[in-house]
């Protein structure tokens, strides 16, 4: 006789899974923690230095919380409005619109920041092309908030959009039958039901921006506005190097990530709802209004401006010279594509990102399954362990990996497998969480039925679990792929000979070859979009149906 929840996962699978996950994630984090606590024991004074000067910890911490908090709220509001417009108002080409609106997420945020500066700065593209003086100061916290919000709102949009599309319609229908006005239905019924998705979007946007280095470095440093990540980089890479202080700050970031996760857990636990039902939705879809359409167009323009300015910059031969026919062309594209290094880097990027995405989704599925269906303590611990690196900056993960891999798995050192490991550690939490949240909404009865009819674990997985969670699996694939292509800070310290394209582009920017860097970034964006598109065609799903969740 089988009992609920006691079935399915074979012990061997579970054990090996736990081993993999722990072996993958624990060592680098343990090293960081050890370093900091060792310092605490041996040289407490030094650790206290961190809190002795406001601009070591207090100011960067405050700045991080303010900028990331406000931008995450903006991301969520923007995501909610857009998701609502798209899901509940009939606009032509809903799919295309959603693809366009989620586009910014595939752009590297440091490139977006550079584009933003080029656009609005004195004598920038705006002033040159319009003849007016720029209305926006491209540097400072306000610009950081805007760029973070523009870069991260797609996370909230996709999360909320998926929620709206999957919402069980019974409550809404019942309310409508009872003549309750649609405004009240929206506020009192739909919004509360969407709460987990809204929170999810907020947490993703917040966690992503707080561990981000590129954009704050470009927009904050010029006006003396440090955040935690820029401080960590300064401690770690500028003489006099303060390694352990950088690690201590990283643990603060990790703690912030874990706290967010705990909050998310608490809210999700409290509000469980069944999303997958066999009933067809009869939701009232109103015609799209002029106001809504204008809003979407305005947002699209604003969102694509910074990236457009990088793409525009890639066509200018010598930046600084007047923009005329002689100074515009494919010069930088030709240059870049003739470098064997660039082609190698593009190949490495594709190889590593596709591998990372595939392994993360499969591993994510197994972990999510173990966590959701397994009732033991070890599943719970595994769930938290996976999330330890959630908001630790890439540079710190990279350093942790170098130290631990030198001792544990020296054979992969300096190979692309090292990059793969870094990407898995950084993005497995996102993949796992996406699949977990879908799995949680599915009743165990289907799997039980399969099991009762004699199917083994892997057959049940293939026949029942994978088809049901397919959308979530594909969604994490796309998410991990996009994030890996853009990953800069861990890649920069890990790549020896095998470089990824974004590292090459970043080095071009940082060595003054602006046009080359812009051209390579443009190529990379095109490649990411093409891969996502091809993948969605192969998987026979529309891109917009792919949504990550936290």
């Amino acid at each position, binding site marked *: 006789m089988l009992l609920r929840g006691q079935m399915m996962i074979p012990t061997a699978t579970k054990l090996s899974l736990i081993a993999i996950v722990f072996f993958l994630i624990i060592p680098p984090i343990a090293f960081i923690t050890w370093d900091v606590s060792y310092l605490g024991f041996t040289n407490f004074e030094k650790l206290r230095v961190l809190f002795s000067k406001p601009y070591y910890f207090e100011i960067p911490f405050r700045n991080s919380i303010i900028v990331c908090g406000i931008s995450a709220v903006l991301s969520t509001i923007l995501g909610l409005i857009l998701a609502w417009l798209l899901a509940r108002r009939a606009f032509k080409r809903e799919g295309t619109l959603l693809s366009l609106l989620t586009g910014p997420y595939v752009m590297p945020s440091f490139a977006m920041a550079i584009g933003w500066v080029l656009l609005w700065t004195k004598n920038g593209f705006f002033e040159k092309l319009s003849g007016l003086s720029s209305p926006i100061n491209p540097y400072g916290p306000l610009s950081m908030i805007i760029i973070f919000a523009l870069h991260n709102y797609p996370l909230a949009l996709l999360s909320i959009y998926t929620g709206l599309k999957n919402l069980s319609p019974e409550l809404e229908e019942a309310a409508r039958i009872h003549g309750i006005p649609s405004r009240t239905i929206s506020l009192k019924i739909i919004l509360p039901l969407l709460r987990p998705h809204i929170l999810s979007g907020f947490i993703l946007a917040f966690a992503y921006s707080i561990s981000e280095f590129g954009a704050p470095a470009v927009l*904050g440093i010029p006006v003396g506005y440090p955040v935690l990540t820029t401080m960590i980089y*300064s401690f770690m890479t500028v003489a006099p190097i303060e390694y352990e202080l950088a690690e201590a700050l990283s643990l603060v970031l990790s703690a912030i990530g874990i706290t967010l996760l705990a909050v998310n857990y608490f809210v999700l636990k409290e509000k469980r709802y069944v999303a997958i039902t066999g009933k067809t939705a009869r939701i009232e879809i109103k015609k799209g209004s002029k106001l809504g359409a204008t809003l979407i167009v305005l947002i699209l323009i604003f969102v694509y401006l910074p990236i457009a300015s990088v793409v525009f910059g890639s066509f200018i031969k010598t930046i600084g010279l007047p923009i005329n026919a002689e100074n515009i062309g494919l010069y930088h594209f030709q240059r870049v594509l003739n470098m064997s290094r660039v082609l190698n880097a593009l190949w490495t990027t594709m190889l590593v990102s596709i591998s990372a995405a595939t392994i993360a989704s499969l591993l994510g599925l197994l972990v999510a399954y173990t966590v959701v269906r397994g009732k033991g303590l070890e599943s719970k611990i595994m769930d938290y362990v996976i999330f330890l690196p959630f908001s630790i900056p890439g540079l710190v993960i990279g350093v942790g990996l170098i*130290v631990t891999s030198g001792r544990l798995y020296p054979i992969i050192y300096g190979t692309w497998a090292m990059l793969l490991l870094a990407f898995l550690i950084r993005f497995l939490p996102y993949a796992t969480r996406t699949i977990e949240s879908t799995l949680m909404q599915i009743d165990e009865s289907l799997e039980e039925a399969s099991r009762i009819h004699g199917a083994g674990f892997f057959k049940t997985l293939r026949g029942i679990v994978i088809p049901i969670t397919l959308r979530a699996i594909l969604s994490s694939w796309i998410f991990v792929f996009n994030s890996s292509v853009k990953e800069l800070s861990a890649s920069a310290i890990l790549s020896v000979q095998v470089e990824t394209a974004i590292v090459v582009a970043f080095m071009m920017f940082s060595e003054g070859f602006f046009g080359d860097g812009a051209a390579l970034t443009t190529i990379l964006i095109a490649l990411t979009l093409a891969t996502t598109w091809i993948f969605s065609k192969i998987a026979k799903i529309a891109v917009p149906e792919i949504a990550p969740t936290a």
Partner: protein
Amino acid sequence: MASKSTVWMVIILIVVIAGIGGYYLYTKPSEGGSNVATITMSTGEKIEIPNGLSGNVMLYTSIPQEIMDGWVKDWNTYFANYTKLDYYRAGSGTVVAKILAEQKAGNVKADVVYLAGYFDFKTLMDNGLITKLPTVPEMNSIPDQYKDPNGYYIMGRLLVMVIVYNPSLVSNPPKSWQDLLQPQWKDKIVIANPLVSGSWQYSVLALVSKYGWGYFQQLKQNNPLVVQDVPDVARSVATGERPIGVTLTMYLKTYTNLNYTIPTDGAIIIPSPIGIINGTKNYADATLLLRYLLSKQAAISLANAYTYSSRTDGPTPPGLPPLTQIKTFETSISALQAYVSGLRDNWTAIFGG
């Protein structure tokens, strides 16, 4: 069904093991370097191939890609048959962070390091990571001021920090470092961040050692834009974001509309140190690489990228004056030493971070 998945697992396992094995075989060091040979390079310089080569050498460096490309090309022409050159390239600070992490792992992969400035290099020395250099003939062409008296490093490249301006926006540019403090340049200057940029850090320390932190307190009154690194300064001036900046001559190559002045109190010369990692298994290979890096042949690539070699006979970059004609800001590494530890605090106190 379970047996089928077992079969799959076994297949995957075999593939993984085969892959790892194949990788090992593929990267097994070659057996080069037993017969003594002398290589003559296009400059006429001769380098003897030393005995005891392992066949591999790893360079960790912050040298720009353009120069590195030239060196790799040379290496493949002259030395690749004897030893294989690999390199890791990143900003100086990232290179140091990586080596320190490798030291913690007990496995430093680098054999030779070539960094932008002295202070990052010093971090490596302080951690016992650098060994004494061998004496090689190429050192005779380099003035003593660019050699460590204790023999741990030698300066190979010289970066030159000057004042640049956008001639379409400024007709009468500042003539000296002191000129930058004049109120007429308020809101017109762009500088880098010494907590990001190694070469600018060196320059800030040089200015402070002569004029004190008061210099930057006064400069702050002119509200300069503090971008990340020196190439960002060049871009900012070239696009006219700010018409005046402080950056390296090397960026005059990419940003052709820039003009420069050598300050009357002297351009700041930033020497870039080369060293060999303590305990390297490839010391002979590292020696060969060191000889090449100090050669006139290698200096050609430096000049092509608008930087100078420390050699007395190093070629002059096209369009720039010979090094002997550039007035040099008076400073020395020992004079700067005293100000390093206070840099982060003082800079942050003035500019905020």
